[in-house]
Structure formats: structure tokens, C-alpha cells
């Protein structure tokens, strides 16, 4: 089973830290990993990409996450990402930014990593995401905290919003989003948590870790390939 861990935040300039994280990912059994640098201003060069890939047998993909504070900043920053070859995610609790990002074709993922942001998901955003083939990403890291009362509240909120997401037609991603090395978990174990504690049917949970990340990565390759216009179309000659 090709399960994906779709978000791992690492300092890409610190090769020791990257090697430690990748070693732990291998031990835990992650086979496909999407890494992101700590800041969105970081330039992912081919040299860094090749260096990281040479450290491990895990298939590695890259992404950048933008955290704009307001709509003006979003409009300014998104211009740097025209023809961006890696995955681009936007994270914000501001509804106007969410609506704008879900309509923008440069944005691949709309991500929600903490409870405050998960609570800001609205029906309108879900509808726009499903219409524009943008993925919604929910992080399971709020469920793995130590404080019992906060953890219980986080479970309740995630359960409620996951129900809403499953009832809509939006494509969703589920990720561990580990804040530290010892919070990394095998995606199959996270599926068990979704099934037993969030009441998500097992097939739906598997889609969030397997099918949708696969189609996301495949869609990105098709977008990057100038010979292809979309699913099922390819330039064969002339033009």
C-alpha cells in the first residue's frame, strides 16, 4: 500500500536534521513523503532536492506553504509562484484568503494545521475547493497532544469538521504533520486512529492517505509537463 505522509516540516539547510528525520521516517514505515521547508521564502533548488533524495529510499516530493496575514499579502506573494514546479499550499484562518486561494489555479492545497484554522472551514470554501480541483488538507497533530482536556476538545472539533468534509465532494488529504521526530507515525496507524476515534469509514480514511495524495502528485506532474494539457490530452506534433 502506497501511503503518503503529505506534510513534514524540516529545516532543509540543516542536513543532519533532515537525515535524522528521514531515518525515523524509514523506521516508522513511511514510503512516500512530502517535505516542506520551515519558511515559504526558502528556494528549493535541484541540488538540495538531489541531496535529500540521495539520503533515503523514500520517494520524496516537495511543497511550500504560504501563511499570508491578509488578502493584499496573499496577492503579492502568490505572484512569485507562477509556473511553480512543486506543490503549493496556503494556510490561513482568514475566510477571504481561503476563498481566494480555493479559486486560484496556482494553489494546490488548502491546509489546516491547528484547531483554530479547522474551525474556520465553511461550506462556501468546501464548495469552491470541489469545483476547482483544489485539495483540502487536515492535520491530525492536534489529536496527539498531552493535555487531556484540550485533546478531547480537538477530537470533537476534528470529528465534526471531518463529517462535513466527507459529506461534501471535496478531495481531502490527511496528514500526521509531526512537530518533532518522535511524533512521526506510520500512515496506517493514523488510519486506525481515524477509524476508531473519529468514526471515519476505513475506505474513506485510506483515500485521505493513499488515493488523493497519489492523484495530487500525478496532477502536478501533468500540470508541469508542457506537452500535456490535462487528463487525457497530449500534444503529439506541431502546434
Amino acid at each position, binding site marked *: 500500500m502506497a501511503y503518503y505522509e503529505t506534510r513534514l516540516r524540516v529545516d532543509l539547510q540543516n542536513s543532519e536534521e533532515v537525515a535524522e528525520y528521514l531515518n525515523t521516517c524509514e*523506521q*516508522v514505515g513511511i514510503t512516500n513523503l512530502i517535505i516542506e521547508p520551515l519558511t515559504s521564502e526558502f528556494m528549493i533548488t535541484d541540488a538540495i532536492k538531489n541531496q535529500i533524495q540521495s539520503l533515503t529510499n523514500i520517494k520524496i516530493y516537495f511543497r511550500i506553504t504560504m501563511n499570508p496575514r491578509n488578502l493584499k499579502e496573499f496577492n503579492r506573494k502568490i505572484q512569485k509562484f507562477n509556473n511553480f514546479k512543486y506543490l503549493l499550499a496556503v494556510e490561513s484562518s482568514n475566510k477571504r484568503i481561503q476563498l481566494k486561494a480555493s479559486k486560484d489555479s496556482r494553489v494546490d492545497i488548502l491546509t489546516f494545521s491547528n484547531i483554530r484554522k479547522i474551525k474556520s472551514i465553511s461550506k462556501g470554501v468546501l464548495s469552491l475547493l470541489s469545483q476547482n480541483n483544489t485539495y483540502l488538507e487536515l492535520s491530525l497533530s492536534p489529536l496527539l497532544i498531552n493535555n487531556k482536556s484540550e485533546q478531547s476538545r480537538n477530537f470533537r472539533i476534528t470529528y465534526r469538521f471531518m463529517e462535513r468534509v466527507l459529506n461534501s465532494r471535496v478531495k481531502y488529504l490527511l496528514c500526521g504533520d509531526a512537530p518533532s521526530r518522535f511524533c*512521526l507515525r506510520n500512515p496506517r496507524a493514523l488510519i486506525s*486512529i481515524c477509524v*476508531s476515534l473519529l468514526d471515519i469509514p476505513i475506505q474513506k480514511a485510506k483515500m485521505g492517505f493513499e488515493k488523493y495524495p497519489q492523484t495530487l502528485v500525478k496532477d502536478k506532474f501533468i500540470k508541469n509537463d508542457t506537452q500535456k494539457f490535462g487528463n487525457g490530452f497530449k500534444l503529439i506534433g506541431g502546434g
Partner: protein
Amino acid sequence: MKIKERQRYILFQIIKKKENMKVKKSIFLKTLWSSIWRYFGLKGANKMGLWLVELNNKNNYGILRVSQYSKEMAISALTLIKNINGMPIIFSTVKTSGTLKSLKKNNRIE
């Protein structure tokens, strides 16, 4: 007619911060049961049918036996353990199987 409850064997790997740290069986079981009680309560604990078959500190693995329908609960409870006696630790499930023999054979465990 007697209906036997089917079992599932769960092989898990132990990933420790310090390699020489030993995880005692009693402490592991105490931590696992407290995790089961915390997330699934009395009702979940009743259904579990939990038995620790093996805990090998040298090769960093363990085998649990649970009832068939509580496999996902057992894996969740194991996954949600973050530390033992304050030391960060990961219990990562590797494989589940219906028989101990096939689990050991397929994962090259003696």
C-alpha cells in the same frame, strides 16, 4: 454451538530515543492499558482481549494478541503512546496476522 473469538497478532517495532533504554514488560503494559482506558474506556477495554505475547528489547519489537474486532482500537492505543516514564518513544505497527506462525515467518522472527 461454541463460537470461538478470532484473534489477531500485531507485530510492532519499538523506536527509542536512547538505544540502550530497556522497556520493561510491566511498564509497557501499564502504559498501554492506561492508553486503552483513556481513549476507549471500560467498554473498549472489555472487547480487547489483550495479551502481550512477546517484548524483545534486544531487537526492538513486540507482539500483541487482540481479538479480531478490536485490532484497530489496539493499534490506535499503541500509536497514541508518546512516552514511557518521560522518555519519548514510538510504537510503530509493522504487520498484523491471524496466526503467530505466519507473522514470525513473514517477518523473519525466530
